[in-house]
């Protein structure tokens, strides 16, 4: 037996209270773990997605490139359209591997829910090399391809028909894109010609997604495209920046919630330990009689909070990992733009950091109760109650 085991046994005396504040620490640590993982995981996933997607730049008529990026990425219409004649002009430029025209349209359904249509040409597939399609690519002008989430919501399978009253059109599902984790999951893809017809935008495009044959020619190609009338180019970097700033406010909000959780559990621990210190003043007084110094008493209390927070931290980190996929899904749904791929991966550094943080909080939380206890005089033992 030593002071540490004595602290441990003291904790066991108040099992319910100890477990409750341990649960508080666990929740806070799980939240901390998730946020730390998310912070690194999001950027990594975003970069991976950008690296995977063949798009190096997008051309549109939108003057503000960031606006265009935002709309193109998480759906929405750009009210100004690009003349479809620009598409072959761009395609024919040297250094271009793929130039895929798209027409993006949203339709508000009866329930007020917006559905996004992407009219895309066959070469759009070159920009989505990682897509796995169940069924087939477009088989005719009335075929449609659904994102995995869109298919789930519409409760449709390959071969089924979907009817959209808003445009009075019916399509046959030729394929469903398997879940990517990105915004694509929620979209409806139509053949470009069909989309132009249905939305009465013949000869118009929203944007052209461009993939380069050689990334080193980036600036050259960009400059060349921008010589075309009414064409502006948004680069991949600008798109990433835009996504980051879109995510920034969500990150801030989550960080704020986290800070609240941390503070609440921190105060909870102080309260728990302080309460037991008050209950044990007499015993601490007695320990002073049998030779304990104020430092001994301080350490007993400090170890108690440390053990409590350490245990809570470990439990929290385990829970954070156990529920990583649930948290991941939740974050993907919550964020304005979520790249494909997992955010929360097993990262020993983040696990260690979370637990260490909990332990550090334990040490800090122990200071006030520890000092209170250390001040117990031997006379506390014989004080009349």
């Amino acid at each position, binding site marked *: 037996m030593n002071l540490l085991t004595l602290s441990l046994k003291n904790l*066991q005396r108040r099992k319910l209270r100890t477990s409750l504040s341990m649960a508080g620490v666990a929740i806070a640590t799980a939240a901390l773990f998730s946020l730390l993982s998310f912070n690194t995981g999001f950027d990594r996933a975003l970069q991976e997605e950008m690296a995977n997607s063949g798009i190096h730049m997008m051309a549109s008529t939108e003057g503000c490139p960031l606006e265009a990026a935002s709309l193109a990425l998480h759906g929405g219409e750009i009210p100004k359209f690009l003349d479809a004649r620009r598409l072959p002009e761009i395609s024919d430029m040297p250094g271009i591997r793929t130039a895929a025209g798209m027409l993006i349209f949203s339709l508000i359904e009866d329930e007020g829910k917006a559905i996004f249509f992407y009219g895309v040409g066959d070469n759009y597939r070159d920009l989505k090399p990682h897509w796995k399609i169940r069924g087939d690519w477009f088989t005719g002008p009335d075929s449609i391809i659904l994102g995995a989430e869109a298919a789930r919501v519409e409760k449709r399978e390959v071969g089924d028909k979907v009817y959209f009253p808003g445009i009075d059109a019916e399509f046959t599902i030729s394929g469903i894109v398997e879940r990517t984790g990105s915004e694509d999951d929620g979209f409806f893809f139509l053949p470009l010609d069909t989309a132009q017809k249905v939305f009465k935008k013949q000869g118009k495009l929203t944007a052209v997604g461009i993939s380069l044959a050689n990334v080193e020619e980036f600036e050259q190609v960009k400059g060349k495209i921008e010589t075309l009338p009414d064409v502006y180019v948004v680069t991949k970097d600008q798109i990433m920046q835009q996504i980051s700033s879109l995510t920034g406010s969500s990150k801030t909000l989550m960080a704020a919630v986290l800070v609240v959780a941390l503070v609440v559990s921190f105060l909870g621990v102080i309260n728990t330990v302080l309460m037991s210190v008050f209950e044990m003043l007499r015993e601490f007084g007695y320990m002073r009689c049998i030779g304990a110094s104020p430092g001994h008493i301080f350490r007993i209390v400090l170890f108690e909070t440390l053990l409590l927070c350490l245990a809570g931290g470990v439990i929290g980190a385990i829970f954070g990992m156990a529920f990583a996929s649930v948290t991941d899904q939740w974050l993907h749904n919550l964020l304005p733009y979520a790249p494909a791929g997992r955010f929360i991966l097993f990262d020993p550094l983040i696990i260690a950091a979370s637990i260490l943080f909990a332990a550090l909080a334990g040490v800090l939380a122990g200071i006030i109760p520890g000092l209170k206890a250390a001040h117990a005089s031997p006379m506390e033992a014989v004080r009349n109650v």
Partner: protein
Amino acid sequence: MSDLITLNKVNKTYRRGREQVHALDGVDLTIQQGEFVAVVGPSGSGKSTLLNIVGAMDQANTGKVTIANQDVTALNEKGLTHLRADTIGFVFQQFFLQPTLTARENVLLPTLFTRQKYLESRADELLARVGLAERADHLPDELSGGEMQRVAIARALINQPKILLADEPTGNLDSHNAEAIYGQLDELHDEGLTIIVVTHSEELALRAERRIHLLDGRISDDKTQGKTRVA
């Protein structure tokens, strides 16, 4: 025999509202190594106050207190802690056993705070002395009041103190259990331990060889008496 404890004109006052209570009022007292002293007197006469000062738990307002050649009034917190740890063993009316520790662990508790070794065999020896060899692994919950107090005595002895202080050690016990405690104190005294007990129990007071009677914070009577032994 040498003077182990000396009190010189010791005053201790407490403030109760506007009133000043003279818990001890100019007490002069010398106790020698190996004495068995009973402190008696009516409630509120200052018995516990005297014991707390002798135990270096409390400080006198004025006067001089010397314990084992150390001037207590001149010691700092650290010095007092060491004095309590090394020289004095305490037994109280409440047993102060840690409910989550076994009898053995409770006996060993003081060693966590001192340079004494954490020796389970030593604890078992002491538990055997107080007749609790079989109970070493029991929790306080599983012990009777008398057994708990005997564990407390074993614990007070683990650091091999020079002085054993006991404030109403049998106050919470029935006569049968109290009897066992008396026997223990007798034995310890026979082995040369200096014992000071505060008690309302005439039976216990009779065991001591010296009886100090307190009245209103003053020693009103101090006499040596023949020890009563129950064979």
